[in-house]
């Protein structure tokens, strides 16, 4: 009797322990080191926690292609005439991975280089493309010159891929096509995949969206507001905020034992440079605003919309753009872009288009049934991704089911280079 009770005791204890280890084990199994989503978004992954990737791979950088041979590129954008990209080829036959960069980012951004190494190491050829919101892409490869309508942007990406494929001399080395994008590039990847179902040029075998925006308009508003809402006194006091930031960087740099503003500097000095979460949000908003100003000015000139630059004015190669930079980066930022430049442009082409309809068609919700029923599309995101709204995560879970990998932290793309994430990303494509 006694032993029996003792047995039961042991069993119970064992069960509790087992349960506890399962729970704790699950929580502890993800060790991405930064808990704050703002900090994660700004700092990404510290070197020690990153996946093991080769220092250098054999990659052709600074490759260029002419997308629209007939296009008269304005003088002021003479350097953006051709689209820049990079490609890494293996010498033997292998599948080709296409990478799409996030908002405002180039083909050679840090995240793109990381992904390029990871996939190349895993045996893929890797093609890296700039975001359709990057000035070089807008000038050289955007059919409209006005980025932001995800369907039209996805069409432009597809067009670029077709052109590259037509001109490729390595066709026999490519066994299949795969597609991956992060942030805005993640959302675009879904639309590119859907377009491919109709056009069938590449027949992408698998597609992965990393930290995509559910609705790119809502995410952009959210990011942009981070600047305006977190500068004490409003955007016209940006100078004070900026000076404080520079002051903090200088102080850490002068006092610390740092040789340069690189490597570990920002990671170690973070809490001195950005002492409060409010300032962190402003920094993220600031970085988004820089991309936005680039995009706004470029789109304005390319479409001759006369928003910042007088209509029909031809700027020379050496014209001073400092004042335009000031106007482009102040004011209401993204909302202004959407209402005064972006929407009117599409309204001119499609007179019956309402603002709401234009925004709605750039949401992943507009292709929900495609995403829900398509086994080849996967999604990776974080519970605390700052570009998502309440309920977005549940929506992803519900639509993607087991194809959604949702990490407990990492902010917006902060954990992309973390070893577990890289492992999952590569494995998603390796498994069938």
């Amino acid at each position, binding site marked *: 009797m006694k032993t029996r009770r003792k047995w039961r005791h042991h069993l119970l204890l064992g069960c509790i322990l087992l349960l506890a280890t399962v729970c704790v084990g699950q929580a502890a199994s993800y060790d991405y080191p930064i808990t704050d989503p703002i900090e994660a978004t700004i700092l990404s992954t510290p070197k020690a926690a990153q996946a093991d990737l080769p220092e250098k791979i054999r990659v052709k950088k600074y490759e260029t292609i002419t997308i629209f041979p007939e296009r008269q590129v304005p003088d002021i954008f*003479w350097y953006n005439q051709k689209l820049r990209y990079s490609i890494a080829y293996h010498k033997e036959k292998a599948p080709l991975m296409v990478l799409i960069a996030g908002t405002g980012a180039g083909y050679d951004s840090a995240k793109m280089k990381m992904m390029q190494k990871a996939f190349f190491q895993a045996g893929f050829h890797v093609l890296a493309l*700039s975001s359709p919101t990057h000035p070089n892409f807008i000038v050289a490869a955007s059919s409209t010159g006005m980025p932001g309508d995800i369907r039209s942007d996805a069409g432009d990406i597809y067009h670029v891929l077709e052109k590259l494929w037509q001109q490729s001399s390595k066709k026999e080395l490519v066994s299949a096509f795969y597609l991956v994008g992060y942030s805005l590039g993640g959302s675009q990847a879904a639309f590119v995949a859907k377009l491919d179902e109709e056009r069938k040029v590449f027949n992408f075998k698998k597609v992965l969206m990393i930290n995509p925006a559910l609705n790119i308009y809502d995410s952009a508003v959210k990011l942009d507001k981070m600047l305006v809402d977190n500068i004490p006194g409003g955007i016209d006091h940006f100078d004070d905020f900026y000076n404080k930031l520079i002051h903090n960087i200088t102080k850490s740099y*002068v006092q610390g034992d740092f040789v340069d503003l690189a490597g570990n500097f920002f990671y170690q000095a973070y809490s001195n440079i950005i002492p409060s979460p409010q300032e962190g949000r402003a920094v993220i908003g600031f970085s988004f605003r820089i991309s936005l*100003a680039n995009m706004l000015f470029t789109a304005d000139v390319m479409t001759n919309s*006369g928003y910042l630059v007088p209509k029909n*004015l031809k700027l020379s190669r050496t014209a001073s*753009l*400092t*004042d335009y930079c000031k106007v482009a980066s102040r004011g209401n930022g993204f909302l202004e872009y959407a209402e005064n430049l972006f929407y009117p442009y599409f309204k001119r082409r499609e007179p019956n288009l309402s603002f709401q309809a234009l925004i709605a068609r750039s949401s992943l919700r507009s292709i929900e049934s495609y995403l829900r029923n398509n086994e080849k599309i996967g999604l990776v995101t974080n519970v605390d991704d700052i570009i998502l709204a309440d309920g977005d995560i549940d929506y992803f879970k519900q639509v993607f089911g087991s194809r959604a990998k949702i990490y407990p932290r990492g902010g917006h793309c902060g954990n992309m280079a973390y070893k577990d994430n890289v492992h999952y990303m590569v494995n998603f494509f390796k498994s069938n």
Partner: protein
Amino acid sequence: MKREKIRSTKSILLFALLIFIMLSTGCATNQSARKNGAAIIPATKPVAEYVRSDVDYPIDAYDPWEGFNRHMYIFNYYFDKYLFLPVVGAYEWIMPDYLEDRISGIFKNFSELRNFTNNLLQLKGKGTIITTGRVLVNSTIGLAGMYDPASKWGMPVQKEDFGQTLGHYGVGAGPFLVLPVFGPSTLRDTTGLVFDTAVHAAVMNWALDDVNNKTEIKLGINLLGAIDERHRMPFRYYQSGSPFEYDYIRKFYLEKRLMDIAK
């Protein structure tokens, strides 16, 4: 006789350089004068109204020679594209990465001379001592600078140049200046560059005193030094694609120099 020959070669080179500048930038000015006929309509958000005089803009900088600078910025792109980067590319193609790093080390060890003089001129005791230690360790155990054991032994590089020295003693940056080949600078930092280069040349001249073919050797060393320096610098003109790259680079340069002077 020989000196005269060098002088004339130099002036030919300089002349060719000027022609190149005029060619590469002159056609741009012509293009800008071209009108397409359509009337110019004021912008929705005109600069005159939206750039406010009561607001400070961090992107502003003292740049009275902006026209010249923007031309020079374009010139540097072409210089890179048609001369400098192909040469650097050939160098990188020939050299194994390992050797490239050793050569970089040797040139970095040379530049300790600049760090030493300027730490000394700023009366930075610790910096001067560390730099001396670095030279002693890296020149011997580090095999003429090919390796950098000093950094691992708690003697990190103490970068100082004469521009920083001038700044340390309160000399302002002066106008922003984009130098041919060298890139972003200021009037103060250009003065510094001239001084540091002169000291470097004088010491090299003295060190190579009894060597035959001194001119050729010096030229060779300087050329390799220039290639090595460009090889180490990942920056490429216009790669960011941003229409405001010039403005951002200008700001970044000026801000970084202030930090270096404060350090």
